[in-house]
């Protein structure tokens, strides 16, 4: 019976352009609110990016192995004199390894902060719109439609926030490095390393924003409309 009826109607498809338009405008209108959400992403990514790019700059300077740079590095408490050729003492090597593990710890920590910060921000932004999702379902939106809207919205938001975070994180690190090492920073500037870090940060930030938004949006889309509308209040 239902198939016969369904055959009479046109298939419901949401044109991509319309979806982009709706989600983009939704972000624009909620600018203030989405700015707060996005700032969570920005801060997390800025932290991640500053840790990564700092690593890159320092290892690049260390690999240069110039005495005047080594002096500056040592002043900042960074072990020097160990190059890939490796003619350093066992003691220096041990300290080097210790530092390495400290770095790994710092990076994992920054990633964790990133995950929690972004997931929380995106979860909040979707949860406060459960009523809207319920309403859209009442109006005949397909689950996929709702998920698509949030997918787009969180991608835009994630991309914007991540890009801003990368720029801010990098700028801060660069500023600090310039203070400590002056012109050497540019002489041995690790272009490819920084670019790589930025690339990773972009992927991490955008993916996390997506996942953080998708899970609650998917859950809301699967709900019966009344449930979705009730859970808001």
């Amino acid at each position, binding site marked *: 019976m*239902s198939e016969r009826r369904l055959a009479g109607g046109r*298939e*419901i498809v949401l044109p991509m352009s319309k979806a982009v338009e709706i989600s983009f405008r939704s972000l624009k*209108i909620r600018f203030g609110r989405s700015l707060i959400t996005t700032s969570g992403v920005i801060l997390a990514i800025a932290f991640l990016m500053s840790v990564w790019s700092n690593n890159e700059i320092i290892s690049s300077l260390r690999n240069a192995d110039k005495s005047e740079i080594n002096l500056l590095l040592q002043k900042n408490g960074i072990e020097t004199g160990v190059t890939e050729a490796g003619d350093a003492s066992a003691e220096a090597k041990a300290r080097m390894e210790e530092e390495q593990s400290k770095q790994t710890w710092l990076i994992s920590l920054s990633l964790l902060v990133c995950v929690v910060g972004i997931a929380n921000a995106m979860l909040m932004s979707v949860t406060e719109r459960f009523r*809207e999702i319920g309403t*859209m379902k009442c109006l005949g*939106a*397909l689950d996929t439609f709702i998920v698509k809207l949030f997918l787009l919205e969180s991608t835009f938001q994630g991309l914007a926030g991540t890009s801003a975070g990368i720029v801010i994180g990098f700028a801060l690190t660069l500023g600090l490095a310039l203070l400590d090492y002056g012109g050497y920073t540019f002489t041995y500037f690790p272009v490819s390393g920084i670019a790589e870090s930025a690339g990773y940060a972009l992927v991490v930030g955008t993916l996390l924003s997506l996942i953080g938004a998708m899970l609650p949006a998917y859950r809301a889309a699967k709900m*019966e409309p009344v449930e979705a509308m009730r859970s808001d209040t």
Partner: protein
Amino acid sequence: MTETAPDEVAVQEQEAEKRTVVRTQQVKKTYLMGEIEVHALRGVDMEIYTGEYLSIMGPSGSGKSTFFNMVGGLDKPSEGKVYIDEVDVAQLDAYELAWLRCRKIGYIFQSFNLIPVMTALENVTLPMVFAGLTSDEARDKGMELLGKVGLGERHSHKPNELSGGQQQRVAVARALANDPAVVLADEPTGNLDLRTGTEIIELLKEMNENSGVTVISATHDHKMLSVSDRVVWVKDGQVDHVRNREDLDIEVTHVEGE
């Protein structure tokens, strides 16, 4: 044979007139609140006919809203069946359910539930977008509907720039977006003052008379009584009694006489 023919025609006419659009069979709904089972509905049989204006009345907690949600395909019964246009709602998959909500049913809520970031026109055209209309078609139809509810001038206003009554008018226009068979109104006057409430009721009645759309409204607003073709009283999760328009008129005059 020749004598029975007119009768048959008459019966057929009557049947055609009373085509069922929503039918419920022993609908039950049980919620689990902690350890306690709450029986919101205890088996409701109901037939709602095309083109009628039906009010569901009852105090809060009577199961009125639950019944209303069942009829609108917004919630699934624990037991029993709901047929909308002779289609068993429980048998529908997500896609078909969305289609049903999009094309067959228009919803009006107590709290308006307009999308806050969209203008009046965009709110009205949203269901049309879901139904696959092009932007131009949707805009023309949306403007026409807004004109019908008397808000043609205010199509570019956001919900928070409109009064409660105006927001509900937008909601009425939105409910009619895809020419539904049924309009479901859940306490449409609940958040409105007496005068704007009356206006919304009149608007609904007008739509009911002009376009023949079936209106089902859950309410405890007694202003609804005078426009309803039928009123169903729900009490303790069951249909307490049903009154037709003729009986209602008598009752209303009787009350006024006192």
